């Protein structure tokens, strides 16, 4: 395969970048996604950010964009479009997914904060874990009333939690090393739906 054409990428970059800065901002991203015919809330947009090693949300720097796409052997919109489907397949692999999932936390939070606001987290979980976590809806319901921010530790461990044999939660050890929020969730769940989750 011939090497990616950096010049072409730079031009691409120019098309979308902010007028006053050397980065692609929120508007530029929106246009990019439109052109790619991808919904902005599609998980693949996050996968792209992961692959480009973007450091903060709704923003691609020149380096991230150009170098990142070059590494993906992509130098045009067409190629990018095709690449997206292979990206989707890539995260089907659980180990890759886990790394991706953990990346999303870092990517989504404010640089100055240590944790993620609950609302943001909830929106992200809806995208990321839909179809991978059978208790997702209960979890989101539980969170509505229950906390203000999600720590990195809790975010990471939620993925592990989602991979437990979920239907009866009999594996769950509440004297174990799960974060307190997840302990509380299990307690709440058992109280709310005693029939389904007896263990």
């Amino acid at each position: 395969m011939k090497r990616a054409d950096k010049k072409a990428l730079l031009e691409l970059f120019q098309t979308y970048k902010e007028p006053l800065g050397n980065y692609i901002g929120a508007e530029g991203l929106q246009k990019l996604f439109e052109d790619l015919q991808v919904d902005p809330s599609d998980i693949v947009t996050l996968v792209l950010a992961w692959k480009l090693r973007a450091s903060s949300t709704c923003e691609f720097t020149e380096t991230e964009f150009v170098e990142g796409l070059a590494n993906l052997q992509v130098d045009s919109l067409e190629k990018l479009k095709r690449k997206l489907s292979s990206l989707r397949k890539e995260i089907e692999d659980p180990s890759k997914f886990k790394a991706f999932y953990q990346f999303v936390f870092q990517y989504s939070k404010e640089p100055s904060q240590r944790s993620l606001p609950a609302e943001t987290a909830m929106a992200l979980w809806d995208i990321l874990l839909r179809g991978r976590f059978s208790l997702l809806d209960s979890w989101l319901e539980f969170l509505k009333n229950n906390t203000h921010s999600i720590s990195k530790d809790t975010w990471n461990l939620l993925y592990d939690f989602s991979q437990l044999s979920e239907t009866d939660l009999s594996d769950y050890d509440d004297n174990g090393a799960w974060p307190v929020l997840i302990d509380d969730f299990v307690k709440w769940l058992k109280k709310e739906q005693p029939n389904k989750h007896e263990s």
Partner: protein
Amino acid sequence: MSRRLGSRVLILPFKHSVQADPKYAERTWDSLKEAIKEICKHNTGVLSYEELYRNAYNLVLHKHGDMLYNGLEDCLTELLDQVVRQVAAHTDSSFLEKVKQEWEWHKVSMIHIRDILMYMDRTYVAAKRKTPVYDLGLALFRKVFIKSTLIYERLVNGILGLVELERKGEEVNRQLLASLITMLRDLNGEQEGEEIFYDFERRLLKETADFYYEEAQLQLSICSCPVYLRRVEQRLVEEQDRIQSYLCVNSPSELIKVVQDELVTRHMETIVDMENSGFVHLVRNDCTQDLAIMYNLFHKVQGGDELLRSRLKKEIHTQASLILNDVDNRDDPIRWVEAVICLRQKYMNIVDDAFCHEQSASRNTSMDAWSLDTCVDKKLLQTVNDSFEWFLNQFVRTSEYLSLYLDHRIRTDFRNASEAEMENCFEQVILLFRAVRDKDLFERYYKQHLAKRLLSGRNFSEDIERIFIEKLKSECGYQFTSKLEVMFTDIRTSAEEVEAFRTALDDPQSSLNGIEFQVNVLTTGCWPIRNQPAARLPLEMQRCCQAFEKIYFARHSGRLLSWQTSLGNVELRAHFPSRRHELQVSTHQAIILLLFNHHDELSFRQIQEETGLPQNELIRCLKSLACGKYRILCKEPKGKEVVDTDMFSFHSKFTCKLVRIKVANIMAEKETEEEKRETQGRVDDDRKPQIEAAIVRIMKARRYLDHNNLVSEVISQLQTHFVPEPAEIKRRIESLIEREFLERDNNQRSYRYIA
């Protein structure tokens, strides 16, 4: 012989006719056989030992050993058969005696026979490996006589019958029984079919079990628990005696066990739970002797100990819950603690007096003798302690009440108490303290109450306080008590400050308006006192404070004083129309009262404005002045509660027999629900950094540890102060992960220390 024919005399040699007489052996044997029969009939007088011995000797010598031996066997068998028929003909009343007699005789006979046939024993028997003569005699006795169907059953039944009679209380011939049983034992063989003694033992055990089964049924239906226990004890003593005397079984302990099983083990629960006389009843009424008997019996059987422990635990829980649920007790700290102490003492006494068992013998060196140590049953002691621990930690106000109790005793009783009483009181408090899990909560209350005692202005005894502090130190370590030192020092230096202050004043009378003024200067941070803004003091008091400050700041530069009016007390001279009284009041109460020097009547709001007191405090003070025992103020409308629309006026018609009236003292009292929550909240806040420090300490040392081990290490490190909840520990761990002191390991049940 000689013949007279001529002059020749012929002397012929003596011809002895020694033929190999075939009939010689038979004849010899026959005569021996007769002799044996005579021996067995005890007619030894007519016999010559040497002749018989020689006959036997000759037989054996001439290779007739077989005939002799087999003949002996047949002869004895025949004789014994006859004996069987003779003995069997006796009636039951003399049957056993006859058996014994025959046995004795048989032994004697066999000795004689053995003596005669000793040569055969030594040569023929040894060579042919046959049973020696005496043993043969015994074996034949067993086989022919004892095991005869006419004899055996009657014999065994007879023996067992006598035993049963004796058990029922009749006197029996013990010697006879001893002989017979020893006989059975001696005759016991190794081969199958020969184990007559083992058979007898088995029958005996079964009979014993049946007998005592019935006994238990009978006694349980008529006896109360203590009476039954005594009967059981007696039965056991009797059986032991029987065993010593004649019931020489191979395994006495097995026999005793059978008795115990039937009398005790089978009915353990029935005995213990007997209504109105069982374990619970005995414990409630302190019947230590009966309990001691019960314990001794139950201790020896399987499951007895556990049963007692479980009942004791249940009973303590019941009684303790009664204390807990009694409303009067719950509201009165002193009563509550005293009830608990009393209850605990009761059970300790019972355990000490009743639940002891003998330990192995030990050498008492001072007396140079062996003595048996009795020691208290540790597990029962543990049960008492554990139950109290459970109970004390059930009740949320335990720590507070304990400290209040201590405070009360120190303030009121210890003036006149002996050292022993004081020591005892402190010991009791410490024992309960040891069981409390939230030790830091107790420490907090103790400090508060101690501070109040120190500041109350009355003479407190530093020595008494120190005795208790020493005890706390040995329980909890010195860090706790080091802060208390500062409190004591402050009191001492305050006295010096006041001295200096008084001497430095030019004209005490005028500068202080004749007020006697006392100050305690407290080091901030060491006293459990929150810095609160001062109430608005009347002018006279303000002047005193200013005068003090002037001199204090001259002596010590760079210090800041903040006046705490909530803790002072004042003696007011009150001029009522009827007479003068001296009122001992708190500073806040004094401020309020002094307002009425300038006003006849004041509303709640006005008082609030003038004094600047916070709402709760004001309500409390006014309540004590207007609705309490001594009504110095009148309240409109009348009633027990103070609301912010009330009006207050000086109660000119106040009378009281006493001249000096204590309206209130800054003394320790029970917290309101709200205050209690606050204190608990503060304690919880204090615990968080302690938990975190423990986690960091442990992780720093271990570097890598799994979750469960970390939690248990944290608990064990902190439990001298309080027992942290695992959930709280988890929260602290998460917080430390956030702050990057720790990280999770990949397998996610362990943590790693981040250096």
